[in-house]
Structures are given as structure tokens and as C-alpha cells.
């Protein structure tokens, strides 16, 4: 009881009431797909973990805009999710700490120590110029690739949380023409032969609620109540794209508050219009919600205040692979006739050209139709068709005629 008081005192000090905490547990249970009967279990697991010692974590950064870190840290006020995330003691954060000797030692202590840790990796892994060309160089001359290699190769690394789409597949950093040689975490580790469980949190940026959900799920699944044992269990039950199933099992479109307008054919065609004021569906404005698996309509952003489509924008499909190349222009229904930024179709035939698929297809069909008309006129001119047609069928196949000729017969 005494230890629980300490935890709730901690909450109270941050202005979070027990009621708030239980509400948070309820909403997290909903995100995890659990019934409300799990709320007390969740609450006791979180409280227990907070009292039984913190799990070391390091937050490494590759090529990124720091949006995922901002998204996680920029709470308008201390909220419950912050407290859950405090279960991870962040020993090192590449983006928010100076890279002096103290920071480097703190980082090394984690992955050279004897306690399992969790690595949160934000940003793409930029292999261009051996990792030195585009990333932060530490005071000792090492770079972010060296950091990643050392941490991921450590026996104590329990799992890697690939935070945000850049860490998942290279994200926007990897978009055509990918000058920095960016890549995603799973791909990089597999190429380097490093075997560490990776949990992908897709999206640009990843949201704190998604990270919180993974931490809470790990607490629930951990065999000994520790995060490090639980995170391995989380990593063992991911979808085929390495994401927690419950966070990416429905499209934006499935639970969009504007979905009814889509079905009714009530659309916004122009910003500033009456239709926009009525919150009609933004599908014609380029919304990629039907192709994007993420739970933004349920979780929402900025302490669950709103999210892209609710605030009037379109879903730009930021949780899909190669999302910039595949989904741009974001304000258009379709990607222009363009190219992939890597793989066998790289750079073919045009990158991000101005050709709209509907217009291009119609133009191509029109060209064929015009060619057929011209061909028809040619057929007529050659007297193959029409009243004065003189067309006749050949008397012998060309092939047979040639063979006959070879054999010395008549032509």
C-alpha cells in the first residue's frame, strides 16, 4: 500500500489525479483492444513497474526532422502518458543532449552494462558516405551509424522501437533521389546480420500514445513484470509489417468521422467553400485515408484534441511505406505518373512529373483512337475496304511460298 501511495503521490505532484490515471488506463485498454475489466490490472502493472525500478532506454537519432521526439515530449502540460513513458529512464537522447564526454559515457554505460535496455530509434539510417556525411558526429569522432551498430550489437539490447516512418522504412528522408543513402531499421539490421527484435511504429510522426501503448502492452506481457521481458513478447506478436496489430488494423477511412459524407457523396472540392464549412469528405482533395492503416481517428493528436482530417486537412498516408513518393502530390487524388525512388523501377519513367493518371490514360486512349481513324483512312485509300475494294486473300502463305522456293518449286 505504501509503495502505491508513492506512485499516486508522484501522480499528484504532476497534477494528475487517481481518476485521471484510471481514465488513462481505460483509454489505453481500449487502444490495446482490451475490455474495461483489464483496467485494474493495467493500473496495478503500471504502478508496480514504477515502484520496482526503471528500465534503461536510449533514444538514438538518424536522419530525421525531430518530429517524433517533439511529438513525444511536447505535451502542453504533464499528462498521464508522460508518466508511463517515465517508466523508461532515458539515459541518452541524441537530439536533446549535447554530445560531450558525459553524454557519451552515459550512453556507453547503457549498452556496455549488465542491465537489459530498450533502444528507441528515430529517423532513417543514413548510410551515405559511411554515415559521416549527413549525421551528427560525436565528440570522439564516432557517428550515428557507429552508435546504432554498438547499441544494436549489445547483448543487453532487449528490443528496438523504430519510432516513426523514417526509422521504419526510411520515410521521407529516403524519398527520391535519396542522396543520403537512407534506409529503415529492419532492412539495415537484416543486411548487417544483427538479430534484435524490432517494433515498428509507423507514421510521420509516431504519436506518444502509440509508444505508450507499446510500453503498457510490454508491461502486461512481461513474464516477470519488467519492461524488457515484455518488449520481446510484444515484438513476437506483430503484423506482417512489424507493427503492433492493434495500432494498425484499421484504415483511417474505416473510422473517419467524415465517412458518412463519403458514402453520401458529399465532398469538398475547394478549400474555403461551403462544403468545407460543413465538414464534408475531403477525398477529392487528395485524402489517402482509404489506403492508410493507422488509428488517428481514434487516438487523435495533441492530447487527443484533433487530427489531420478532423481539422480540415487530408490524410497524406504518412504511415505507408515510401509514402512521399507514392502519395505525392498530397493535395491530389493520385500520384502523378512518376517513379519509385529505389528498387527495380527507380527513376522510371519520370519522377514526380506533371502527368495525372486519368489525363494520361485518356490522352493515350485518344492517341490510339486517332491512330485507328488514320489507319481506317489508309485502308480506304489502299482500296482494302469500301465499295471499290479490291482486296483479296493471298493464294499461298508467305512461309509456304518461301519453302517451296527453297526446294526449287514455283514461286
Amino acid at each position, binding site marked *: 500500500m505504501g509503495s502505491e501511495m508513492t506512485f499516486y503521490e508522484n501522480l499528484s505532484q504532476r497534477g494528475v489525479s487517481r481518476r485521471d490515471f484510471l481514465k488513462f488506463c481505460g483509454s489505453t485498454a481500449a487502444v490495446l483492444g482490451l475490455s474495461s475489466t483489464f483496467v485494474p490490472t493495467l493500473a496495478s502493472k503500471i504502478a508496480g513497474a514504477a515502484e520496482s525500478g526503471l528500465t534503461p532506454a536510449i533514444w538514438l537519432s538518424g536522419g530525421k526532422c525531430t518530429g517524433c521526439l517533439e511529438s513525444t515530449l511536447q505535451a502542453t502540460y504533464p499528462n498521464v502518458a508522460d508518466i508511463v513513458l517515465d517508466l523508461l529512464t532515458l539515459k541518452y537522447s541524441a537530439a536533446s543532449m549535447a554530445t560531450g564526454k558525459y553524454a557519451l559515457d552515459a550512453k556507453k554505460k547503457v549498452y556496455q552494462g549488465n542491465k537489459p535496455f530498450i533502444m528507441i530509434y528515430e529517423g532513417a539510417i543514413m548510410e551515405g558516405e559511411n554515415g559521416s556525411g549527413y549525421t551528427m558526429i560525436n565528440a570522439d569522432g564516432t557517428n550515428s551509424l557507429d552508435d546504432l551498430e554498438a547499441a544494436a550489437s549489445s547483448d543487453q539490447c532487449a528490443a528496438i522501437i523504430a519510432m516513426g516512418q523514417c526509422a521504419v522504412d526510411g520515410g521521407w528522408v529516403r524519398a527520391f533521389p535519396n542522396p543520403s543513402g537512407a534506409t*529503415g531499421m529492419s532492412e539495415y539490421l537484416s543486411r548487417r546480420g544483427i538479430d534484435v527484435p524490432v517494433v515498428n511504429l509507423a507514421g510521420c510522426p509516431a504519436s506518444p500514445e502509440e509508444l505508450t501503448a507499446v510500453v503498457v502492452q510490454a508491461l502486461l506481457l512481461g513474464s516477470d513484470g519488467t519492461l524488457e521481458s515484455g518488449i520481446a513478447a510484444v515484438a513476437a506478436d506483430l503484423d506482417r509489417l512489424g507493427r503492433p496489430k492493434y495500432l494498425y488494423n484499421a484504415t483511417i477511412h474505416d473510422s473517419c468521422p467524415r465517412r458518412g459524407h463519403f458514402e453520401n457523396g458529399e465532398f469538398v472540392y475547394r478549400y474555403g467553400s461551403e462544403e468545407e464549412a460543413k465538414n464534408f469528405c475531403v477525398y477529392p482533395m487528395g485524402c489517402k485515408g482509404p489506403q492508410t492503416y493507422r488509428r488517428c481517428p481514434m487516438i487523435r493528436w495533441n492530447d487527443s484534441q484533433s487530427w489531420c482530417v478532423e481539422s480540415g486537412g487530408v490524410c497524406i498516408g504518412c504511415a505507408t511505406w515510401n509514402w512521399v513518393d507514392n502519395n505525392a502530390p498530397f493535395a491530389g487524388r493520385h500520384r502523378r505518373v512518376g517513379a519509385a525512388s529505389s528498387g527495380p523501377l527507380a527513376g522510371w519513367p519520370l519522377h514526380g512529373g506533371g502527368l495525372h493518371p486519368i489525363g494520361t490514360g485518356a490522352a493515350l486512349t485518344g492517341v490510339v483512337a486517332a491512330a485507328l481513324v488514320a489507319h481506317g483512312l489508309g485502308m480506304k485509300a489502299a482500296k482494302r475496304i469500301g465499295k471499290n475494294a479490291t482486296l483479296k486473300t493471298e493464294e499461298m502463305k508467305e512461309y509456304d511460298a518461301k519453302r517451296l522456293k527453297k526446294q526449287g518449286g514455283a514461286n
Partner: protein
Amino acid sequence: MPGKMVKESTHPLFVFTHWTNALAMLFLTISGLYIAFPIVGGLMGIARGTHFFWMFVLLINIIIRIIGMFTIKTCCEQGTREKDWDYKNWLPQKTNRHQMWPMVKYYLFFKKDYPITAKYAGLQKLAYWLSIVLTFAVAYTGFAIWGPTQDWWIFRIGNEIVGSLFGFGGGDGLMPMRLIHHWIMWFILIFTCIHGYLSLIYGTKACKMIFLYKED
């Protein structure tokens, strides 16, 4: 240059499947274009309903047509009423063996006389096979982007391949798959233009037969 069109060159079931194909293509194209970009409001429910209904009709229809190949007899040569299994029309025949290239030359005006051919010319056979492949491809890509079926293993494989081609060697392929579905529609439309042109260029007798089952 088709000879006289005799009733034995086709079968009432094929007239029916041809009509169904034509209507399905028409409704699927119009509703699909609307779904791709709903140029006016109010019709999305109707467009999607139409698209899903005719998608199943088209698929069942093409399967019926393929079964018909093996169970129905039609004449396989020009200028005869003698019938044989319809599938033979779809395979290389003695009459038009080695005639593909002469036919290409003929239509490009490099050859004066019309090449000897069976009921279907070599190019025609190829185009008809292509139409079956395109129909299955458009159905496949359609199911691969349709919510209820996109996670079936058979469609997931396609999504993964497309995801690999367009998504850094992995990931989901829903957006590129949508575009591939769209492009196949244009190829089918281009095929239909050429098909319509070649069936009408020598007169209306082929059309009368396949649409009305009437000898000229």
C-alpha cells in the same frame, strides 16, 4: 477480311457472354472513373455499388466463357459450317500457323494481300488471350485494394510484390496497386477501341453475328 459470317461461327451463350462483357466493361469503367475522382457529388454509394456488382458479374461471366470453350462446338475455319470444340479457336491452328508476322505486315501496309487465316487470325487470338489476362489482372488488383479481400493470402502476395517494387523493397502496396488497377482499365479500353475498329472495318456482319446472332 472475314468471309461470310455463319451462325455456326458462334453460339447463343457466347452472344450472351459478349453482351455481358460489354455492359460490365461500360459500367465498371464509368463507375471506376467516378470512384477515382468523384467529379460531381452524390453518387459515390451508387458508383461503388455498381462497381462491386458488375465486378462479380464480369468475373463469373468470363469463367462461363472459358467453360464454354471446352463444352461448346463452333466452326473453327472460315467458309464452313463444320463445327469443332471452341477451344481450338484459341490455340494455334494449321490454317494460320506462321501467319502472325504476315498479318502485322498487312496491317502496317507492307503486304498487299490479306493473309490466309482460320476463323480467328493469329493476332486476334493473341488479343483475345490478352483480354482474358487483362480481365483477370483488373479483377485481381481490384480485390487487392478492396477492404474485405485485401488481406486474403492470394491478394496479400500481390500487395507485397507491388509494395516491394514501389515501397523500398517492402511494406504495403495499396496506393501503387490502386494505380495499377487504374492503368489496366485504360489498357482494356485501348483493347476495346482496337477490337471495335477491327470488327467494324470490313463491315457490320461480325457485329450483327455477335450482338444479334444474325447471319448477314
